[in-house]
């Protein structure tokens, strides 16, 4: 008996001692990535070559006779480039103004500047059409003011898309640029000035070079997100973009073409992801934000002061209006707002209905359920992958990291098409079931789209936790699992929770993949908003939107608290 135990122990310890044991541990991670990232992608890839003539779809795509696809590709690139430029100008300017100058209203503005992050894409576009669209509040107001036949201006088409992109994505530039500016050592600038460098010289020789890395990184990101943008083109009726073409091909039942378009768009996205990663690895992170107090110059001269007050007031208004308009319309009676500037009749019914009317409540509950299932998956996968990434040593780390990032870099539309290609037939990865048309396909899509969220925040926490703390626990007699429960989990909990909450709200608000995948028995919240909109039930749609914004604000608040708390307790 004893001998046998001895034998088993030595067998086990020999197995665990083997340099290949770690590969056994990480194989589930790779299996999941293979099943739900690589295999769906590959299925789409295969489908794009379907037909008698394998390259027929690609020939069609690039054909010069019907140029819809090429036009769409060009439009997507064009919109993305313009978006990058606009976002860069707005974001960097905002960062400079808020970090370097003191003017009335700066504090409020520096909080509100992040409002776009609290707007789910669909809700954001929605409020913009209410404000500036063809029958929006502002165009109507000016029409009435000047008694015009038609609205004098309105947001539509490609420029509508670009404006929405700028509003929702300038924050990427703002955040990285303001971090970089905070890190700029003011004495560097002073040194340059004292050496006789003029303003322009200081700018071109000192400030811009320091900002370049953050600007390039944000540009790549905004370009990628713009290429993937689907909601804005949909709402502004720009059909000739890649994502819209995929959506249309899919809804017209032309699956092979949708697969071809998806493949081409994927290649562009993955290419950008790789460039981005290469760039970030190459650049060395200088963290100079150590207690260097950035001094803000006060705006003193009278006219400048007036201008700054007007501008900051305008900025505040632009930022806050989308939320105000949502709140306003959420109280308006459905069907009461037709050609007036503002809705005329108000009611509380929409909010009551949210929680009392079964049919209104249903989509919320669906989204909560599907989001929760997806998030549980994200937690399990994210924590395990983060631990493996940070603590284990094995070959293929960067492959693991890339595979986790890819679904995030892929447009939601493409993720949906990939899942359709893989799971509309029975598949071993779905336990020989067809997933399309069931409850499970959306949680799967949410899981895949939000793969990096828990992973990233958990690895960040883990990296701060010195390995010797775990070793101390082991040396005191604790098993690996006991150590994980009592030491690793409590110490990384804030990171795990932050990622989890983010994944959860994003899943609850997810629209892009949902619209292609949802089954009519489990309609998610975002699709319900979309449907209400087309049934002219603006009030209900906006009430849904306000609910989502509240949820996001709560999550942001908790995350902020958590990150402060953990920073305080870290030794």
């Amino acid at each position, binding site marked *: 008996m004893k001998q046998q135990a001895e034998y088993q122990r030595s067998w086990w310890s020999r197995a665990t001692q083997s340099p290949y044991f770690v590969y056994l541990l990480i194989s589930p991670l790779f299996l999941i990535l293979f099943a739900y990232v690589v295999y769906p992608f590959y299925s789409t890839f295969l489908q794009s070559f379907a037909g008698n003539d394998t390259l027929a779809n690609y020939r069609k795509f690039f054909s010069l006779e019907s140029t819809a696809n090429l036009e769409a590709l060009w439009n997507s690139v064009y919109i993305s480039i313009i978006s990058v430029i606009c976002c860069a100008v707005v974001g960097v300017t905002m960062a400079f103004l808020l970090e370097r100058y003191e003017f009335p209203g700066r504090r409020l503005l520096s909080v509100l500047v992040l409002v776009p992050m609290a707007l789910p894409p669909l809700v954001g576009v929605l409020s913009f059409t209410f404000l500036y669209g063809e029958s929006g509040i502002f165009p109507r107001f000016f029409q009435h003011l000047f008694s015009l036949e038609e609205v004098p201006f309105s947001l539509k088409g490609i420029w509508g898309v670009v404006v929405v992109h700028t509003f929702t994505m300038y924050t990427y530039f703002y955040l990285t640029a303001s971090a970089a500016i905070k890190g700029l050592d003011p004495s560097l600038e002073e040194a340059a000035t004292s050496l006789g460098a003029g303003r322009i010289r200081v700018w071109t020789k000192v400030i811009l070079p320091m900002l370049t890395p953050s600007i390039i990184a944000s540009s790549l990101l905004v370009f990628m997100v713009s290429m993937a943008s689907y909601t804005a083109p949909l709402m502004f009726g720009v059909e000739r973009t890649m994502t819209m073409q995929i959506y249309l091909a899919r809804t017209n039942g032309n699956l092979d073409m949708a697969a071809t378009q998806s493949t081409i768009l994927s290649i562009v996205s993955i290419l950008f992801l790789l460039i981005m990663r290469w760039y970030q690895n190459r650049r060395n992170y200088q963290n100079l934000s150590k207690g260097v107090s950035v001094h803000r110059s006060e705006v003193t001269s009278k006219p400048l002061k007036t201008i700054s007050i007007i501008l900051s007031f305008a900025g505040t208004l632009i930022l806050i209006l989308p939320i105000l308009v949502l709140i306003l319309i959420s109280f308006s009676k459905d069907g009461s707002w037709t050609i007036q500037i503002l809705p005329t009749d108000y009611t509380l019914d929409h909010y009551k209905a949210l929680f009392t009317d079964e049919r209104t409540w249903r989509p919320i509950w669906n989204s909560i359920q599907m989001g929760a299932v997806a998030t549980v998956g994200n937690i399990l996968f994210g924590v395990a992958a983060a631990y493996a990434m940070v603590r284990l040593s094995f070959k293929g780390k960067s492959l693991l990291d890339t595979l986790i990032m890819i679904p995030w870099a892929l447009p939601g539309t493409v993720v949906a098409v990939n899942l359709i290609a893989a799971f509309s037939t029975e598949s071993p990865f779905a336990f020989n079931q067809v997933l399309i048309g069931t409850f499970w396909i959306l949680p799967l899509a949410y899981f895949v789209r939000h793969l990096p969220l828990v992973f990233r925040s958990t690895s960040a926490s883990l990296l701060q936790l010195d390995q010797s703390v775990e*070793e101390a626990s082991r*040396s005191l007699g604790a098993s690996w699992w006991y150590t994980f429960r009592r030491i690793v989990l409590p*110490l990384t909990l804030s990171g795990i929770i932050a990622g989890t909450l983010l994944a959860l709200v994003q899943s609850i608000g997810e629209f892009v993949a949902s619209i292609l995948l949802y089954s009519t028995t489990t309609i998610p919240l975002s699709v319900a908003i979309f449907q209400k909109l087309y049934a002219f039930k603006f009030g209900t749609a906006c009430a849904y939107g306000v609910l989502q914004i509240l949820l996001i604000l709560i999550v942001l608040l908790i995350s902020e608290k958590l990150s402060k708390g953990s920073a305080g307790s870290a030794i």
Partner: protein
Amino acid sequence: MKSVRIENVTKKFGNVLGVSELNLEVKPGEFFTFLGPSGCGKTTTLRMIAGFYYPTTGKVYFDGQDVTTLQPNKRNIGMVFQNYALFPHMTVDENIAFGLQVRKLPKSDIRQKVDRIRGLVHLGQYGSRKINELSGGQQQRVALARALVIEPDILLLDEPLSNLDAKLREETRVEIKRIQTELGVTTIYVTHDQTEAMSMSDRIMVMESGLVKQVGTPQEIYHKPNNRFVATFIGETNMLEMKVSSIEGDVVTVESENGLILRGLVNGAAKEVQLAADSTIHVSIRPEAFEAGPGDNTVKGTIEFVEFTGLSVNYIVHVNGTSLKAMIINGGSAIKAVRDEIELHIPPRNLYFLAE
């Protein structure tokens, strides 16, 4: 209290050599120190004893039992880490109690043991403090208490004092030694600081580049180094390359290239040294080997540097083209100045011959 034996252990990290062909025996209750410059493989060896690394080849035994690939949590060791590795989300008491909770001791026993050990490390009233409310020295004590409370068979300490300031370091050094003597636990201590090693250890293993250079008591290491590395690493010494000119009875006469002639004793040689006329050897002369005034092995030279420390006078003397460091115990006699001539002598028993 267990013995530790390491047999032919080699550890490679890919192509990097951690330690090579290491053999070692630590007796029960002994205070044993790994001493060597940074990167010589001390931590690697310690971690193989702790079970955090497994040797590439070779075996590790505790009391004759093979533990080479036993998991760290099954070894009943106490370990103190360089950065203390305290659990930041727990109080002092919770930290100390952790190992006892793992062992599923009854609550009352845990309470009692924690209180006792907290007294032993002089942290009486700090039980409910958070870790980040403690000073570095106090954190150090918590780490020590946490490792000791489980009554480990072997206590491992990896540069435990290197994060403390100089004064605290000396205090804590005495403290660790006191507690170790009181508990009698087999202790392996890693340091790159020779003062720590010399003052605390029963025996020292001197390492360099993954190799053992010598194992011995502090006196052996200091007075009878096996090689030039040990002689220069431990304490200060004048290392001269000289030629044996004659051996008569137990007197060896050596001569340097520029004509310095000294006499030493045959038994003042390291183990492997083969003394033979005309062979080249290395001579180690500690600064304190010099005595004032003329006598056997008189050396005359010009003073290049003087330093008065109160206890002693330190000179650098230029003799026959060589600079020699000499330390003369302060006997109250007049102190010479730079560029003065000085006459010193080296009793022959203070010459030490080394091969390589």
